[in-house]
């Protein structure tokens, strides 16, 4: 990216710069070679930088592209990454969804579960991409985000840690390579210097004139060899040390990052045991009302044959009201109709519901 070819001194060409006329101000790149185009992920309508400055510097404003009018903020304008704005948009949406649905494979018990999850997320993404049921999908996304805030954060941290780790690893490897190259270069320099020195020694010896040239040359060669062997061992050692240093750094990283992070959720103090297992507690019967007055129920409240077995009129009232109001598919009116007019109009729905259940058409075989 940083090395995009620069032509004619114009701003580096980037995707989106191909159309050379700003659809908003119609100014042309030909006349203004430094013109750059920006997009806003709200609508992906492209416009030039100066248009953005002009229109949005004083706060959010509607998109100037005809027929759009979406409210845009300056801060969200950015350069285009992909030539095709559809792809640009898809990438943005995918990034956004992936930022929320960031579960990891290891969280799933089986590959099948993981695949199912991915498919579900893909469906969601697809809806957003295709503009199908956008409102509901966004709602789902938002609900999921709110419900799983902690987990999402944790996974995001894990992910960025992983990226950081792999970056650190990469940097460490690069550093190692650099040290290796440096060592090799030093070695070469040393060798050259020694050879140089060796040659000078020979010349010195010859100049002193003690011994024949051959013997002197042989002798000095030995010296050079010895020296270079010693040097090579030293270089090897320092290289190994450097490598060890880097390795240690790399090995230490996961200990303090990945593994630590992964363990944190497990070592978090256990949540308090919830006897209800996370299910919401609906209002208890007695919160409803203690006593629903209905003469039809009086006997059920007083007859020992009914009460001594534990039969509870209150439970019945709760059920009747729940069924009447909770829309469990009971059509009170239909039930009341055709029944002798036991229900006085002014009693209201609760009582009506209670009374409606008491079909009283004798004993059914305790079937359902």
């Amino acid at each position, binding site marked *: 990216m940083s090395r995009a070819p620069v032509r004619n001194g114009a701003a580096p060409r980037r995707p989106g710069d191909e159309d050379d006329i700003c659809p908003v101000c119609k100014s042309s790149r030909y006349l203004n070679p430094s013109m750059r185009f920006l997009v806003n992920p709200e609508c992906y309508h492209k416009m030039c930088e100066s248009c953005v400055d002009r229109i949005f510097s004083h706060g959010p404003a509607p998109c100037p592209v005809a027929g759009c009018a979406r409210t845009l903020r300056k801060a969200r304008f950015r350069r285009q990454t992909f030539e095709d704005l559809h792809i640009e948009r898809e990438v943005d949406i995918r990034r956004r969804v992936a930022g929320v649905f960031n579960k990891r494979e290891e969280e799933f018990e089986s590959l099948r579960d993981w695949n199912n999850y991915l498919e579900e997320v893909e469906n969601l993404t697809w809806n957003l991409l295709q503009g199908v049921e956008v409102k509901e999908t966004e709602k789902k996304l938002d609900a999921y985000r709110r419900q799983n805030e902690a987990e999402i954060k944790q996974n995001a941290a894990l992910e960025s840690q992983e990226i950081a780790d792999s970056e650190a690893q990469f940097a460490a490897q690069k550093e190692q390579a650099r040290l290796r190259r440096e060592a090799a270069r030093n070695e070469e320099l040393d060798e050259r210097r020694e050879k140089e020195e060796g040659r000078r020694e020979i010349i010195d010896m010859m100049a002193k004139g003690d011994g024949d040239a051959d013997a002197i040359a042989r002798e000095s060669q030995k010296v050079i060899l010895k020296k270079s062997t010693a040097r090579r061992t030293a270089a090897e050692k320092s290289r190994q040390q450097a490598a060890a240093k880097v390795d240690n750094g790399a090995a230490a990283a996961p200990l303090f990052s990945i593994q630590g992070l992964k363990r944190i959720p497990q070592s978090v103090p256990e949540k308090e045991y919830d006897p*209800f297992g996370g299910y919401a507690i609906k209002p208890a019967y007695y919160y409803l009302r203690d006593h629903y007055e209905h003469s039809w129920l009086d006997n059920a409240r007083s007859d020992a044959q009914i009460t001594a077995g534990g039969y509870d009129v209150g439970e019945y009232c709760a059920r009747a009201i729940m069924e009447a109001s909770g829309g469990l598919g009971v059509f009170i009116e239909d039930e009341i109709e055709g029944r002798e007019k036991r229900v006085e109009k002014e009693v209201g729905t609760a009582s009506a519901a209670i009374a409606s259940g008491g079909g009283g058409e004798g004993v059914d075989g305790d079937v359902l």
Partner: protein
Amino acid sequence: MAVSPVVTYDTTSNIKVTATKAKSLAVRTNSVSNPRNGSLPEPGKGQELAERLNDETKQRYVKDKKLGEGTYAIVYLGHLRADPSSLLAIKKIKVNTEYRDGLSMDAIREVKYLQELSHPNIIALHAVFSSKNQNLNLVLEYLPLGDLEMLIKDSEGIRYGTAEVKAWMGMLGRAVWFCHENFVLHRDIKPNNLLIAADGEVKLADFGLARSFSDPYRPMTYQVITRWYRPPELLFGARFYSGAVDVWSMGTVFAELILRSPFLAGNTDVHQLELICNTIGTPTEENWPGVSKLEGFLKYDKAATIPVRGREFYLSRFGTAGPVGVDLLMSMLALDPRKRCTARQVLEHKWWSSDPRPTAKEDLPKKGGGPERMGEDLKRKGGEIEGGRGDNVARKLNFGLAKS
């Protein structure tokens, strides 16, 4: 609520079905049952559609080997055609001509209530379809690790303590609470109806005797709940009762988990009452106002009356549960159903938050052996059972007799 919309064509009851339910029930109604009057109200299109839907459902599942045989059903291991790695239990209901409409009421109840109750501690019903000969098939969650009864009995192979008992009771409590919250009585709670999932989760199963809370003045049968787990009001022939019957069963299961043997194992109904009197206390008008008015009440000799046991008795027998646990057990085993705690109160009890913390389900002791051994177990069990539902309820009795 009087008549189920599941199986009849009673027009007055059909209007009670919500649209979504109606959609799914249509399959069952048409393909599963023969309406009482023998003729379908709307032959032709509707039925064709129903048949097609049924076939589609049927096509989705594949039956593998037989897992076991129960009173009124054969249970197979199965899988989704689309996913051979999936595990399911397919319960094929035996056709019995004795039953009205050729269909067992147990199966109808099971379908009706399992469909309504979706909870982690209640066995999940995935689908229902009919196969050839109008056999009804329930596609259920596969629960491979046996049942609580197997764990209780395996006192050599399986060791557990209060934390485990608390975990199991917690799961049972949630299941029963959820049933009652939805106005459903289970009426057959016992260790062998508490199946165990691969992850250790306990699931309440067998809704063959379940029913909705009854309307006022609508009598219910008292011939429910396997005897050892049956509360005194049912033994006294009460026809009007409440969720308290299930709570008593829970209490006896709780006791059994601690004792590792059935708590009140009566040989006959009268013997069962006798055990209750001797162990818990004699029901009287004082401790249970109105009890003498119940149809099947048995008068006891004043001199032989045993006062309701106090804490010391429970502490001596169930001390491992701790004083708080004993308090919960006692409140579940109150003679007078109105004094018994409700399923909600069970879950609200302070035992759950007192030490020890319930064991995590994954760490609970498991019956080993996998599907192979399970199959063996089921075969053995299936062999013991014969006849209709009545036999099943009385099964414990036969079992008890054989033992004593």
